[in-house]
């Protein structure tokens, strides 16, 4: 329906305008703006009202619909109960689930399935030209970054675009497995990514929580597969610096394969034992956990 005019009719115009002019010396344009704003506000209010009414009418119709459906189902149940006398122990057949209920159940179970996949770390979704995978990484209970891969399936499986960091050897892994065994490709890539974020997490935790023990800077690289740093060890009320070189030889592993812990030549002989013990610890335990055990010991 049309909107009633909100601003005064032409006869009243001049009178109103003079009135307004007396109060707003900024002139005609300002007055026009004022009128436009008023018209807009009124239009908004009217629209809201109309929407409310429409919504009310819709809901009323829906209620009618549902009542009708309920009555139909009731009638159906009554009919069935009349036709088949209830046998002992048998439960009356429930009305077959409506198409809508089946659909809702399907959607719910699909969502649950996708949620499970997401929790396993690899999830996918069909796209227009292929599939889009999402690899979610985590380290010891902490969810870390997610990486995406957009794959085309025609004419052959290829990576269209991705958000995998540049220093992960994606092309190498793809060359080996993408064409032949896509599950393996995703699994290997997921291992690389999870190990990388695990190593990075350990190094970040070390820098964040144990900077007091560290001496100087922690030398690391993009893949976090070579860490070199110095830390203080106290013995007989004196502190000695230890130098550590951690090499993570296996790109799919978040523990180092080579550990070299060395102390300065002037350190007492007893420290050599400590160095060996620390070396062994770094090989077995996550870096920040190892340091936690030092500070508590």
């Amino acid at each position, binding site marked *: 329906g049309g909107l009633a005019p909100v601003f005064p009719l032409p006869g009243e115009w001049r009178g109103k305008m003079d009135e307004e002019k007396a109060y707003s010396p900024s002139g005609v344009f300002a007055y026009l703006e004022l009128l436009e704003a008023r018209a807009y506000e009124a*239009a908004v209010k009217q629209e809201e009202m109309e929407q409310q009414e429409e919504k009310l009418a819709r809901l009323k119709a829906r209620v009618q619909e549902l009542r009708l459906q309920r009555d139909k189902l009731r009638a159906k149940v009554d009919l069935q109960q009349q036709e088949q006398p209830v046998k002992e122990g048998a439960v009356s057949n429930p009305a077959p689930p409506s198409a809508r209920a089946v659909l809702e159940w399907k959607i719910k179970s699909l969502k649950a399935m996708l949620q499970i996949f997401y929790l396993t770390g690899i999830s996918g979704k069909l796209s227009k030209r292929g599939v889009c995978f999402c690899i979610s990484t985590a380290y010891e209970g902490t969810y870390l970054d997610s990486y995406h891969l957009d794959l085309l399936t025609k004419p052959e499986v290829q990576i269209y675009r991705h958000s995998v960091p540049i220093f992960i050897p994606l092309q190498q892994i793809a060359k080996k497995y993408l064409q032949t065994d896509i599950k393996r490709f995703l699994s290997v890539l997921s291992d690389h990514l999870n190990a990388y974020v695990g190593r990075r997490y350990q190094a970040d935790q070390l820098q964040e929580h144990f900077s007091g023990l560290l001496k100087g800077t922690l030398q690391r690289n*993009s893949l976090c597969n070579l860490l070199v740093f110095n830390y203080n060890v106290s013995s007989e009320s004196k502190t000695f610096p230890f130098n550590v070189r951690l090499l993570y030889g296996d790109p799919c592993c978040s523990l180092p394969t080579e550990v070299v812990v060395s102390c300065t030549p002037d350190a007492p002989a007893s420290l050599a034992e400590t160095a060996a013990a620390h070396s062994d610890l770094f090989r077995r335990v996550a870096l920040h956990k190892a340091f936690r055990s030092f500070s508590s010991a």
Partner: protein
Amino acid sequence: MDETVAEYIRRTVLKIPRDEIKMMLQKWGFLSEAQLETINFHQIKDNISQDVVQLCEENSADIKQAAVLDIIYNNIYPNKRIWSVYQMNKTGEETEFFDLTDFKKKFKRLLRSALKNVTITFKEYEDNAIWIRIAWGTPYTKPNQYKTSYVVYHSQTSYVFISASVLKSNLPLLCQALVVASNYQDIREMELRSHSLNSLKDIVFKRYSQNFQTYSPRPLTEKNVAPETVDLRIIQENRNEKERIQRLNREVFGDGPQPKIEFAQYKLETMFKSDPKMDVLDKKEPFRCLVKFSSPHLLESLKSLAPAGMADAPLSPLLTCIPQKARNYFKIREKKGVLPGSFVSP
């Protein structure tokens, strides 16, 4: 302290905007907090720089420390230079264990063996970026601290960002040093240049927002379905068309900010296609033509072309492929095959 070093520090401080000087000196860390407290940072820059030089004199600064201050300045204001991207290749497939000390040693050794007079300074940053500053000299003159090249390298990647100085002749030596130090085999220049270093990184490291369709366990926020203009008296005539354009735009450009490049250049070497009867050109030679698009932010302006009604959506793939192909210099020759990508030559 050397006269030249003092002058260099003075000029570097003068480049810094006044409000940032204290912060940069703190980052530099060469002057103590107590010393910084003695400087009045509200006076004119000339006087501030004189005070700084005075304090550096007390601490006996040499060119090495001055070079670090220069790196800090360029790291905070990289957009004052043009950066080119280079890509390195190697055939081996073993995992790289990038050792920073090893890299620095090899780099310095190779440069110094070819050119004795060169100042090399390194600075590592939190994001695994290694900044290298090289001031070039000649076999007979000391390094000119005002003719510097900068290299930014992220370990275990194959990309290097170089902002060369005026002395282009030193570029091959620099490239060779990088290849040897990082254990690669060769290096080539990519057709990608811009003032914005971070945008170049975004493009080659694929950090710009790409629209990935994935199932997200979090419910997607309902897009506001209510029409924008509530006034019923205003009707959108081309609503469908607008929505189609928005959708296409979002598919091509994604939702996030675009990497910042300032120009795209297309060198055309194609034949002039005219009515065969007219026979405009006597010789059948390719028509040579250079088309250059420039803008303070080229990709954002391309993104807004279709919604603004200035171009048809979808835009030509030659324009929209820039971040994905990681290049903004193109050579277009005659189409030889049927595949659309074949006519853009490297």
